[in-house]
């Protein structure tokens, strides 16, 4: 059975040429190579084009609200540690509507892998500026271009001491690295984020496939992702040259380790004895 069968999902509703196809494919290939069963994976997503991804493969799926991917993923990861919890979000979803959750998920350093399909635009709602849109992106709601400074997700993540911070590109040249980073992220203990540059053929005429292709390059072989300051400094590179790779990584404790109630394993699998609890606790009100 090829990965296309095992992880075959619904027919994608994306535009032909959309960068999301490549990401989806890499994801399926990775699952296959990691010999995962669909039931060992849970994908949580929000609303947007990228957020439709879980429907197009096979896995446990919580396709929730726009912007609320990470709290849902957090709840799942705490209640039930039996599956890999992957969060998939768009740039609007994750850096716009859901920005606050991103900050706090990073602080928690909970075991979640976040893939941001960053096409620097609101795709599903037809082309408005997203938090990562370039100033020159004009739209019907931004006739003067995007008036705000584009958000730099990597710099932000490094400032938040996120324990795994990477960038990849969903074009052919970037796919092997994307898969490699995804694998590392899934194996990472703690919160891992990959910002994936993804072209939107319909609404982003600035950051096209070629635009990315010409600018992106891999961080040097000897680059040290352990150095937070230099990670920050590299994260500021954007323009003619855009580095890809694992920018920053640390080994700080994951949230699950701070919680004694998780020491005995999966909450969802525990038994409950109502009578015992009732009698043990009732007396304390006397």
């Amino acid at each position, binding site marked *: 059975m090829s990965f296309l069968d095992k992880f075959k999902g619904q027919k994608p509703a994306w535009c032909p040429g959309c960068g999301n196809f490549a990401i989806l494919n890499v994801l399926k290939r990775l699952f296959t190579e990691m010999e995962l069963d669909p039931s060992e994976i849970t994908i949580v997503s929000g609303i947007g084009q990228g957020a439709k991804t879980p429907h197009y493969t096979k896995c*446990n799926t*919580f396709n*929730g609200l726009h912007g609320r991917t990470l709290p*849902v993923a957090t*709840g799942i990861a*705490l209640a*039930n540690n039996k599956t890999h919890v992957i969060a998939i979000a768009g740039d609007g979803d994750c850096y716009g509507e859901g920005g606050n959750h991103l900050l706090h998920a990073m602080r928690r350093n909970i075991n979640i892998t976040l893939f941001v399909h960053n096409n620097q635009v609101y795709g599903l709602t037809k082309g408005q500026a997203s938090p990562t849109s370039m100033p020159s992106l004009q739209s019907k709601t931004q006739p003067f271009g995007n008036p705000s400074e584009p958000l730099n997700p990597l710099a932000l993540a490094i400032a938040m001491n996120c324990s795994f911070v990477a960038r990849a590109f969903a074009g052919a040249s970037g796919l092997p690295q994307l898969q490699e980073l995804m694998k590392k992220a899934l194996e990472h203990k703690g919160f891992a984020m990959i910002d994936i540059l993804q072209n939107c053929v319909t609404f982003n005429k600035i950051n096209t496939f070629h635009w990315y292709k010409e600018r992106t390059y891999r961080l040097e072989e000897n680059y040290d992702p352990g150095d937070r300051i230099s990670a920050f400094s590299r994260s500021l590179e954007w323009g003619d040259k855009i580095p890809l790779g694992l920018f920053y990584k640390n080994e700080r404790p994951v949230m699950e380790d701070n*919680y004694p109630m998780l020491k005995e394993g999966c909450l969802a699998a525990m038994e409950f004895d109502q009578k015992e609890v*009732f009698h043990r606790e009732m007396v304390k009100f006397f």
Partner: protein
Amino acid sequence: MDITIRIGGEAGQGLQFIGSVLARIFSRNGLHVFSHQDYMSRIRGGHNFYQIRVADHPVRASKNRIDILLALDENTILVHRDNLRAAGVIIHDSAMTGQEHDEADFLHIPFLEMTEKAGVTRQMANAAAIGAILGVLGLDLDLFPETIRDFLANQGNEVVASNLAIAQMGWEYSHSNGWPESLKFSPANRKGLMLINGNQAVGFGALVSGCRFLSAYPMTPSTGIMIYLAGKAEEYKIIVEQAEDEIAAINMALGASFGGVRAMTTTSGGGFALMAEGLSLAGMAELPLVIAEVQRPGPATGLPTRTEQGDLLFVLHCGHGEFPKVLFTPGTPGQAISLTNKAFELAEKYQVQVIIQSDQFLADSEWTYEETHDCFLNYNDYRDRSENSGEEEYKRFALTENGVSPLAVPGLSTRLVVVDSDEHDEEGHIIEDSETRNKMVAKRLLRKMPLLQEEIAPPEYYGHDNPTLLLVGYGSTYGIMHEAVDELADEVNIALLHFSEVWPFPVAKDYDFMAAVSRAELAVCVENNATGQFARLIRAETGFLFKASIRKYDGRPFLLEPFLGEVDELLGQV
């Protein structure tokens, strides 16, 4: 015997400590207690009070008239003196109030001097005050040591011992002081009673229902539930997670619910408002969820530490789109325990959202109960843990006859659980066609509603069968209505009808309660709000139009005497 003690002072003076220790000592003495708290949204200064009604029979509401006033500052005397009954007593230390009082109803006790003599902190004056009040009431200090130990467990034996020594001084001082017999208790039955407030009751209800996950953002007056469960988290393996905001709180809880555990979130009106979208998500994804909404007066920040029943219709209709919902409005901590349990059961059984609406008055009010058994509790695991049988794939939203589809847990079998905030097919994948939409609305909404309605208990009727006056209410007005019925039963044919399960609106099964309402000469809708929301709900559901109402919206609960006054006035109109 029925004594009202009001303890007043500034925030930070420790009146909550005094009040709760006293309440506990009373209940351990087998006395019935009803307490409530009135406090400002500040940490130090201002004016707060803690009021305890202690009696040898069950009590269910607070009075306006005070028997004993413990004044920790002069302001307390200014504010509350008028409420003191004839032959009541004001206990104070003029060194604390900064003012000498030599009128007959004042009892000066040198609390601070006592602490100085004993060489302990000024704060321990509170123990002296506790001792003094027990002394006035003719109760002994037998139960003081164990009680104080429960409160100060983490502070070591020495502190407990000093507290006892100081309490003794206060007790000696007041005990010897020849107080009127009318203030004295002689507890016949020393079989202790259960003492519990509304917040603890919801927390306890959740605990005994197998709740494993609470995510919440702190918000007065709901935080007590979170605190209760956080205290039990390690022992009973419960995650209590403080979320970054209320949106995260509800979405985390939904994640946990999807993950296969019983989950809840707690908040007050403003935080609930932020959960509206998440609630709608829960409706669409058919995720079991329990929410406790502990009301305070709005709109907006309003009066953050006070009480109101202002969110009924908001909460009832909350969430865009249409989905079934259950709303409980307990009137007592006892009801809060059993309804919280019922909430968890229904939520999982029907995969719906159940909201327990309480308010600051109920949350912070302590009630006493005799020992009860666990017979009123239920626990059924409604999750489907079987593997796929044969060929057929598991479908999270399988179209079943009753609208309820099997609820599998991700990762515990090879079944794939797919849920979606978009309209979806049986498997949980996005659809847009008209047929599937119609089927899913029928499944999750139209078919479940009548089933839920079946589960709803009718309102509680209490009092005369053919009443001149019928008090109708819901939620935390239970106590005041009950007291009014008891108080006036000799004079007039009076009864109450109390709704603790308001949605789906109960249907007349066992008895036709709306017939009872129509039968009454005057039906009065009692609500702690300004616009009469419950009356509107009743009209929407039954067509019945109340001609009279008793409302209050100043952030304070109904107190007995003014309430009786309003009832009297209405009786005059019949």
